């Protein structure tokens, strides 16, 4: 299998190197045809903040040259000075294994990263748009997508929040049933407040209010996440109707004190009050933890949840690795069957077994003197039927290599040779 993978990732290079080789979707669309033009290969690639991955397949018998591929990649981004050891270079089965590991999320910086699968899919779509995906790479990416989906469905690799802001929202979901019926207030407009507000909006929080000392920043964040602004001086008056409070402001003293929240809690008739304090120094008096139906979390407790989730995901890696190995084995078996010679042999065996079975079943109907003739005639018929397809398979007629693989695959599928799997359909 003349398959090659060129990878630069958080395993091999620091961010300042990776960012120089980050490709936008438009850049990938224009780069892939250049590759095909220079190297006559099928190619697909995807680029994220943590990795840029290029997969190439050559129909040429000579192995692909890593340096030529790398040179084209770095020249495209004017990054010739990036050292060679920033790259990983994988071929054949190793390249397949690598892509499957990436798609399943176990090669990600954040183990079980859910976005990578969409990025692999986008990589395939971009290659298809550029006309460089080819038959084998398309099948490879479909198998990778299937591996990623299996990893997520059959294991817990993607479960549990692994960022503080998302952990806060996940905790809210463990307290409240329907976030769309709840009201949240974000105090502050910094980066953490923004992220948490976005996650809450993503979970379809019913009503979202923003308050901040600087009204302009409140308005900006409110516009970004579809929230309403409450003036900072007035937000305490609204706390009676709030279910979730996210506090993230720079303040020397507690913004929400225990006596204040005790008084509000007494007046509340609705369910729990969920408080997230991601301010440093802390914005909410820790004594409110003692209040009934009030849940308070600060950065330390959220980090604890994140670390536990990370550990749980790491425990799932061996199960995902087994899925990767299964899929890799299945794919390599499928690829090895795509050669003309084994396909011809399998097809001939199949037809011959059918002929033999039918002849044996009906041979007693013939006169004993004719039986040898029946055997001979049926063999001749089969040979004549198979002659043209076999010659075409051997010579490949005028097809490109990719088209030829497609033909062989279609033939195997039509005749049910080796239980050909429709990877395309499943992906």
């Amino acid at each position, binding site marked *: 299998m003349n398959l090659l993978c060129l990878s630069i990732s958080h395993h091999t290079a620091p961010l300042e190197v990776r960012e120089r080789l980050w490709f936008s979707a438009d850049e990938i669309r224009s780069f892939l045809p250049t590759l095909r033009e220079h190297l006559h290969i099928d190619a697909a690639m995807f680029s994220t903040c943590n990795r840029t991955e290029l997969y190439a397949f050559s129909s040429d018998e000579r192995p692909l040259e890593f340096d030529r591929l790398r040179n084209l990649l770095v020249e495209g981004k004017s990054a010739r000075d990036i050292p060679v050891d920033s790259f990983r270079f994988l071929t054949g089965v190793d390249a397949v294994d690598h892509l499957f590991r990436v798609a399943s999320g176990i090669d990600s910086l954040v183990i079980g990263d859910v976005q990578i699968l969409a990025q692999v899919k986008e990589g395939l779509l971009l290659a298809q748009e550029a006309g460089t995906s080819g038959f084998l790479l398309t099948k490879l990416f479909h198998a990778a997508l299937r591996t990623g989906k299996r990893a997520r469905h059959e294991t817990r690799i993607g479960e*549990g929040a692994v960022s503080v802001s998302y952990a806060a929202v996940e*905790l809210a*979901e*463990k*307290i*409240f*049933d*329907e976030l769309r019926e709840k009201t949240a207030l974000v105090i502050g407009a910094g980066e953490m407040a923004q992220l948490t507000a976005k996650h809450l909006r993503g979970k379809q929080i019913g009503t979202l209010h923003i308050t901040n000392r600087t009204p302009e920043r409140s308005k900006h964040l409110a516009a970004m996440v579809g929230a309403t602004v409450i003036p900072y001086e007035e937000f305490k008056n609204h706390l009676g109707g709030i279910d979730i409070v996210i506090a993230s402001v720079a303040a020397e003293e507690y913004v929400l004190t225990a006596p204040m929240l005790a008084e509000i809690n007494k007046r*509340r*008739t*609705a*369910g*729990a009050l969920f408080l997230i304090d991601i301010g440093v120094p802390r914005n909410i008096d820790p004594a409110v*933890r003692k209040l*009934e*139906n009030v*849940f308070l*979390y600060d950065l330390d*407790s959220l980090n*604890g*949840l994140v670390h*536990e989730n990370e550990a749980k995901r790491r425990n799932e890696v061996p199960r995902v690795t087994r899925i990767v190995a299964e899929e890799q084995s299945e794919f390599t078996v499928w690829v090895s069957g795509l050669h003309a010679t084994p396909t011809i042999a399998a097809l001939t065996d199949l037809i011959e077994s059918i002929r033999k079975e039918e002849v044996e079943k009906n041979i007693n109907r013939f006169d004993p003197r004719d039986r040898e003739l029946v055997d001979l005639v049926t063999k001749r018929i089969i040979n004549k039927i198979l002659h043209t397809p076999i010659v075409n398979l051997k010579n490949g007629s005028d097809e490109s290599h990719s088209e030829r693989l497609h033909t062989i695959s279609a033939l195997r599928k039509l005749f049910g040779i080796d239980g050909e799997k429709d990877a395309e359909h499943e992906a």
Partner: protein
Amino acid sequence: MGFFVDSVNILLPAFYFVVVWTYGKAFFGDIVWAKVTKSHLLISTVSLHFLYLLARAIEFNHPPVTTIFEILSVLAFCVAIAYLIIEIRSKSGETGYFILNIAFFFQFVSSAFIRDLLEVPEILRSNFFGLHVGAALLGYAAITISAVYGFLYLMLYHQIKASNFGMIYAKLPNLETLERMSYTAFKMAFVFLGVAIFVGFLWLPQTFLDVSYSDPKLVGTILLWLLYGIGIAAKRLGEWRGRKVMILSVWGFGITIFSMTVVNIFFSGFHNFY
């Protein structure tokens, strides 16, 4: 028929044990086969239990609610079927292990001590009796379910408060769902117990000449009913929410079990006048 009743009486606790064990495997061990088979096992067990109660009624010619141990078996059946309905409606089987343990316990005690009662007083064949006992049993089943969900709520509440994000945190439904499930059963317990008490007050004086209003079962049930009424009123008025109502539901169950046990130990019948 007698052989069937006797055999199933022995088999039922074993069936419930297997069901609880399978639900436990699915909850704690995350075992795939357990997740797939647990509901089927429960349906089979509940069906067998129904046939058992039916066969018992036919064989002994009276509804199987004439002794405390027959009542425990019906209660186990009510709890199991109520849970099955909850599981099907909510499409969530995470709480089965906790609820079905109660059904297993009730059936185990019932199977161990149940006796065949061929002759029962004619009074126990009355429609009022059926309504009285039926409503009371549904009330007790609701009390049980409310208490289990209340208990799960309190466990999860304390785990979340203590930032203990273990298995209970990961697998149980959220607090609001547990509270809603418990409170729904809580309200049903109040309604059914109310019906049982009301029918009892109408029917008992006509049937038993020596009916005593100081009967501990009667007094206990009325107090329990009043307690549930206070809980509902406090919740509706916004005075109580979350934890307090859940604590009450757990206490309600405790009082019920205590009241049943005391009556059973100190008196020959379900009430002191019967």
